[in-house]
Each structure stands twice: as structure tokens, then as C-alpha cells.
């Protein structure tokens, strides 16, 4: 888990060990809006990136998260590099949280090895550490996937994944 200033916690154990990925230095600017009390000029510097192995063609993946309709809480997001891990929701290459200050948030993941990635993000609006669901398992808090596909369940990896060859920007619209 990462908060402003960035202190990795136990969730790092999900980071892919062979690549020795770890949370490192990256800037995530947050715009402040009416959900924030009295900190109008605050720019949070949250870091969340991956550093380390200087891979030859490492690239940045910038994610603009839009339509955060509930105030407060945190975005919790996971990045997967295979259909298997994506489907099982296990062993994401990155798993992190960032506080919510505004209706949009920009996140940049630095120095990812070239590959195919899919992003799952949800808005833990009540900060209880999970995506709240009802008794039928239907999500009650906001969530989204890269490529914004899927209805009544997450899209398949093939539909949610984006190729990363050079620096890439994507938008995820929370629903």
C-alpha cells in the first residue's frame, strides 16, 4: 500500500519477485476539488512506481482515472501481465493504493518491461480495504478496467489488456 510519501506495506509481497519489482519513485499529481477540505493548493506527490532492473526497452504506462463519483477513500489498483493472473486476481505485477482527492487521477507506472498489461482499479470509498459487494457478489463501489470493457462482470484479459511497447497513455472510466 502506498500513501502520500509512499510507504510500501505487506501488499508488496504480490509484486513479481523474479523481476525484483518494488515500489519506487514516481509522481502522481492529484487535483484538489470540493471533496477536499481547505487544501485547495495541495498537490500530493504519491509514488508508486517500479524501478530497478534497467530493462532495455522499459516504458511508462500512464493511466488517467476518470469519473470518480464518490468523495474520499482510496483507489486500489492492480496491474496484471497474464490472462492467468488477471483471471484469478492473483500475483499482480503491481498492487497499490492512492488516496482520492478529485474526480480524476493520473497515475504513471514507470519502467515497465515491454509486454501486455491489464489494469483493474476500484474505488474503496469507505476505506475498508476492499471492494464492497452485496450478498449476490455485485460490486457496490466504483470500479473500472483498462479499455473500459465488460458488463455484469470483468472483461476477459484479451479485451482488457493493452500492449506496452513504448510510453503509453490510457484512460479508465470508473463505473
Amino acid at each position: 500500500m502506498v500513501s502520500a510519501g509512499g510507504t510500501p506495506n505487506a501488499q508488496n509481497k504480490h509484486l513479481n519477485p523474479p523481476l525484483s519489482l518494488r515500489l519506487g519513485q514516481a509522481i502522481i499529481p492529484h487535483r484538489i476539488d470540493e471533496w477536499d477540505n481547505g487544501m485547495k493548493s495541495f498537490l500530493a506527490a504519491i509514488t508508486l512506481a517500479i524501478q530497478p532492473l534497467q530493462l532495455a526497452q522499459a516504458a511508462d504506462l500512464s493511466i488517467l482515472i476518470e469519473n470518480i463519483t464518490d468523495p474520499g477513500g482510496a483507489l486500489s489498483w492492480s496491474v496484471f501481465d497474464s490472462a492467468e493472473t488477471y483471471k484469478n486476481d492473483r500475483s499482480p505485477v503491481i498492487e497499490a493504493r492512492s488516496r482520492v482527492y478529485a474526480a480524476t487521477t493520473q497515475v504513471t507506472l514507470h519502467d515497465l518491461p515491454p509486454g501486455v498489461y491489464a489494469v483493474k482499479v476500484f474505488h474503496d470509498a469507505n476505506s475498508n480495504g476492499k471492494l464492497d459487494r452485496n450478498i449476490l457478489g455485485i460490486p457496490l463501489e466504483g470500479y473500472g478496467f483498462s479499455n473500459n470493457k465488460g458488463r455484469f462482470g470483468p472483461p476477459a484479459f484479451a479485451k482488457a489488456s493493452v500492449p506496452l511497447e513504448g510510453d503509453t497513455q490510457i484512460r479508465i472510466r470508473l463505473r
Partner: protein
Amino acid sequence: MRRRDFLIGLPTALAAAHALPRAVFAELPPSWAIGFAGVESDLAPLPMSVQGRLPAPCQGTLFRNGPALYQRAGQRYGHWFDPDGMIQAFRFAADQVVHQGRFVRTERLLKESAAGRFLFNGAGSKISGAMPERNNETLNVANINVQLVGDELLALWEAGSAYRVDPDSLETLGVQHWSKELAGVPFSAHPRTDESGNLWNIGSASFAGSNPRLVLYQISAAGQLKKFRVHPLDFAGYMHDFILTPRYMIALNSSAISTMTESETFVGSVKWMPEQPSQLLVFDRQTLDHVKTIEVPATFVFHFGNAWEDQQQLEWTACAYPNSNFMTIGMARLAQQQPGPYYSDLTLVRYRLDLNKSRCQIEPLDVDLEFPAFDRRAPFSPQPLYGASGSGSSASGLATAVMRIDPRSGDAQRYDYGPDYIVEEPQLIGGDYLMHSFLDHRRGRSGVAILRAAALADGPILLAEMERILPLGFHGCFVAAA
């Protein structure tokens, strides 16, 4: 072969209808199409012109709900299920009748109203540029029924929560939360009351694709959740109403099966599967345990009459359709003001279920009674059933008459208003009077009629009318004056 007949043979008839250019009437749309024009804002209190004398038991308010907001920013919904719900109140006092209409302020209505356009697909129509929805609740339009529970109204949908509405102001008070884990869980539009005022309901999560489930609820007379239970379903058949008996809740898992996918609407995903027998799912009221599943020939039912027990047999009535074409094709054509056929070819049937032997007899009563009404003070007595009738022979495929029938003897009485009228769901008031709203589409008036239940054939004893045209709706309730 005319093109509209050709369309019927297609497996996904609704999707096909959307993809093709809109069929049009040779000349002007027929006069009844005004019932699907819709309204775009709340309707302020308006006195109605009244003929006849108001019987004392009919002092009170007829509340009705129905799809009302058909278009925004040049886009129009293409299915009767979709427009936002509006509560109509017809307040009957000794000296006047006043109508008022107010939209239910659902989360969806507030968002779309702020955006100035539709944002999400409907249950039966696609919107261009639709945003993905968070869950079923995002699509909630609270437009099927309105019932008094405790001292508040519930505006009921069937694929999500009910909304609480103030009976005096018609203001929306918020989402009805039964409990935290039931947030956003479907609560169907036809809750039923037992002999002591408890409310029972189903919630059908047939949209949940490969994992369809049925939720059972018991609510106290005051409106508190007493218990609930979630049961898995063998298949995702459309379920709209259920049967309540002194000991059981019985749901009919119909053979109109949803296979929800990313690209279709809910209605578009419903396939009629005649080779799949329908299922009577019998649950114990005390425990909400599943007791038995009894297969019956493939059928489609929106509404049931009341149920009674006759020795070892459970008996009830159902408004049965030969397939789901009315929902998947007819209701889209009506909302789009397109020519028929509309497939409203229903028949009232009498079920006799021997639970011990798992044997069920289904006998057609040869009347096209829909929107069944009965004396709710005696929910488990064999009694006459009232309803709207005439849909089988009208140009619009909608009812033009009110009728009553004794389901055991078959004795029936009827009053037909003729082809200029569409008759909506009747309410039985104190066992003596029948009250129903109607659309006089030739003269362009909406109204409410009262008939004596014992002498329906004599016609109305009171007519309240206005030049304000209301969109045709679904269900409601009568609340007597205090």
C-alpha cells in the same frame, strides 16, 4: 409475406427490430400512440372533471406507477420497460378529484437530468454513447409498481432496490435499504401480503449470467426486514411475480431465459426456449427452504391471481402467454409506436398443484384477463378475480374492458369501453367497488372510472377525466382516506 411477420421468425427479434429502419404506419400513427408519447416534467396538481357520485369507501388516493420519460436530447427509448418511473396520484375527496404526477428521483434520473441526456442503456433499449453501468442499480428506473408499506410508498422496479416515496408530497425519500448485504439486490415489483399483513417478495437476479439466483424476502407489516434467503436457479428464466399460499412461496421460473452478454440489453438477451420446461419452485414460508421443483410445460407469466388451498391441492390463477413475444417484441413495438402484431395473446389459466404427488393440472379459462386484482383482505380464499381484458382483440393489443371471473365456476362479467379506450389495472376497493385508470385516446383524455364490483356490466358509476394525457403505466394501489 409482410416484413413484420418475417421479423418474428428471427431468434433475436428485438435486436433485429432495433437494427432495422423503423417500421412506420402507412398513414398517421393510430390515436392510442399518445399513450406512449411520454412526459418530460412533473405534473402539478390538476382538478379533474367528474361525472357521477363518489361512494364513501372510494375516498382516498389511487397511486399508480409507470414508465413516463421517453426521451432526452433527441434519443428515445425503444421499449416500454425503460422510461423513468412517474408516480401518479388521483386524490378522491367528496367534492373533487385532483391528479398529480411526480417522477421518482432515482440516482439514474438525477444523473441523466444533470447531464441533459441519457447516460445508460435501458433494460430493453440501447442508448448511443451509453456509459458502462456500475451494477444493476445504476439502471434502476423504479417504474413498475407503487405500494404502501407502513406509512410510506415504495416505488418498485424488479432488478434492483425499491425507492421510498412520500404519499402526500410524492417526494422521493431515498433508496429502501433492507440491510447492508441486500444493498442493490433485486426486490421484485409484486410484493404480496399474507393474512397478518406481512409482506413477502422475490428478487430475481436472472441477469447474473451463469450464476442466476432468486432472493426470497419476508418484511413485517411495518416495513422491517424479517428474513431473507438466496437460492441458486437451474436457469435464468424471467420472473416478474410469484404465488403466495398460507404455507408456501411459489415462483415460476419461466422458459424465457436470459443469457446476459456485453453487447445486448437484458430484454434483447432473453430467448424463448420451448424445449426447456418451466419450473414451479416451491419454498417453505417459515424457513424459506426449497421444498420442491415441479416441471410444467414451457410458459410465460407476468402476473398471478391469488392462491387458495383445497385439501391437498394448492390452487391459483395465472395470466399465461404462449411465449415471451409480448415482452421481447410487442412491448418494444408499442413503445416505438410501431405497427403490430403485439402478441398480447394471453389466457387466464387455473393451476391445481398436488404437492405430495408433484402433479400439476393447468386448465385454460378462455378469457384474456390481465392485471389481476382480488380482495387482499382475504388473500387465501377462493374468490372472484378482477382484471383488464380485451387485449386479444384490440388494435393496440391492450385492454379495452374490465372483467371479473369466478375461477372455479367460470362465471364472468365484463364491461367493454370500446376501441377508443385503453383500460389499465383495476383496484378492488373494500370488495364492493372497482377503480381503474384509462386512456380515452380518441378524445385525448386520461381518467379514472369507478364501477360496482357486483354489477360491472352496468358500466361506470363515476368518471373523472382531464385533458392531461398520461403515459400508459403498469401497477398501483388504492389507499383509503384515513
